């Protein structure tokens, strides 16, 4: 009975959104993480090795495709350089402050996943970077395919990612917009439905131009998450219960199984 009261008390304390971790917690997490990274990476290499043998035939086609992508990339790079230059000179003309110029100057930190939580309702990931490497809570985490999640807890040399799969109505959502319609489109990615495997995007205005198939990006409007990270594509749009707003189902862009390397997006230090 006493233990039951204790259990309720501990849960009550932990539920009240206490941010930050205590020293023993950090120590326990870091030592465990230290051991876990010896196992996760070799296992990943082994799995990757067998997969590569299986994929040997597809390799040639993939190579061809990659070559095409590189060609397209170099072409775009030329365009990008020119655009960046005009952008810079325009910024000079308009007397941008130093902070305004740097607002999109993101840094990407390369991190290794070292463990996956064995709890179906709390599928957090652990990565091998922590506060020592400049990781802070609420930083966005991406792969080459799209956004994966948000840093939820940080200790000295490891930190925990809360994947987008764990978004629920209790936590604040992510403000998002549609690619190419950034000015007119707005909604909040609020929760993930495990049964349909779709993200729910709510609070979309009734006259919003968003349509099926649009790519959904983070809008960066709430100034917490960076701008322009790919979240997914719109699968369907419905009117919400009262008909004032619309709700969209979004298919995730990133693949969440067998994650190995992720990038943590570090926003430039805010100059205020």
């Amino acid at each position, binding site marked *: 009975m006493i*233990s039951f009261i204790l*259990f309720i008390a*501990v*849960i009550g*304390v*932990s*539920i009240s959104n206490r941010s930050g*971790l205590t020293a023993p*917690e950090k120590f*326990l*997490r870091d030592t*465990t*993480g230290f*051991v*876990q990274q010896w*196992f*996760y990476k070799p*296992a*990943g290499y*082994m*799995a990757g090795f067998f997969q590569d043998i299986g994929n040997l035939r597809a390799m040639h086609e993939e190579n061809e495709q990659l070559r095409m992508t590189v060609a397209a990339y170099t072409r775009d790079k030329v365009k990008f350089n020119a655009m960046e230059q005009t952008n810079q000179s325009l910024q000079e003309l308009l007397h941008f402050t130093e902070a305004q110029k740097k607002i999109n100057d993101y840094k990407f930190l390369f991190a290794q996943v*070292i*463990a*996956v*939580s*064995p*709890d*179906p*309702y*709390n*599928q*957090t990931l*652990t990565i091998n970077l922590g506060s020592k490497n400049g990781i802070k809570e609420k930083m966005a985490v991406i792969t080459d395919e799209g956004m994966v999640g948000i840093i*939820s*807890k940080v200790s000295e040399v490891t930190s*925990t990612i*809360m994947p987008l*799969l*764990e978004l*629920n*109505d*209790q936590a604040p959502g992510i403000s998002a917009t549609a690619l190419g319609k950034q000015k007119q489109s707005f909604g909040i990615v609020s929760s993930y*439905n*495990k*049964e349909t495997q779709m993200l729910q995007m709510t609070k979309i205005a009734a006259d919003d131009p968003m349509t099926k198939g649009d790519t959904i990006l983070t809008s960066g409007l709430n100034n917490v998450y960076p701008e322009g990270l790919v979240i997914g594509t719109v699968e369907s749009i419905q009117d919400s219960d009262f008909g004032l707003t619309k709700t969209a189902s979004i298919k995730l862009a990133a693949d*969440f*199984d*067998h994650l190995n390397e992720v990038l943590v997006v570090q926003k430039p230090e805010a100059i205020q």
Partner: protein
Amino acid sequence: MRMQGIVGLTFLAFVVQSTIVPWIIPGEFAGRIVPHFTLAVVLFAAMYHSRHSALLLGAGFGLLQDVVFRGHLLGLHAYAMALIGYLFGLLLERRRSTMMMALVVVAFGTLLYELALYYVYKVFQFTQESLSWALVDHILPSLFLQLAFALAVYIPLRRWFQNLAMNRYSKKEPE
């Protein structure tokens, strides 16, 4: 010394279930087959060692799971694992459990554990899914992995735990 061996072994199970197993599970089952190897070791400890060691192991490694993969709640795994370990220890500690019995115990223990997790998360509204969906989606598939693991480690673990228990009793008697 001996207790340290058990702790080390459980820690190994904990590390393996969070690092190697996710790589072995094929992509289409990722997130559906969830390993609970530490729980299996706790249940073996309950059956073949003592209910107190099961209680301690469950509480310790549950707490480790809670802290390392800190998500929505703290202390849930610790409480569930300790309670289940102690309960099964209370029921079966003195009996000589056969292999079938052990497998059934592991299956029921895991089922109980998953249901406890599901209902607590449901009560605090961290999950909206229905029970029948959760059963089909991950509870039952995970059960197969759990049984396979229990079968694989049954003989070495039973022998080890019983030796430990035997040593303990034979030590106590002369005193």
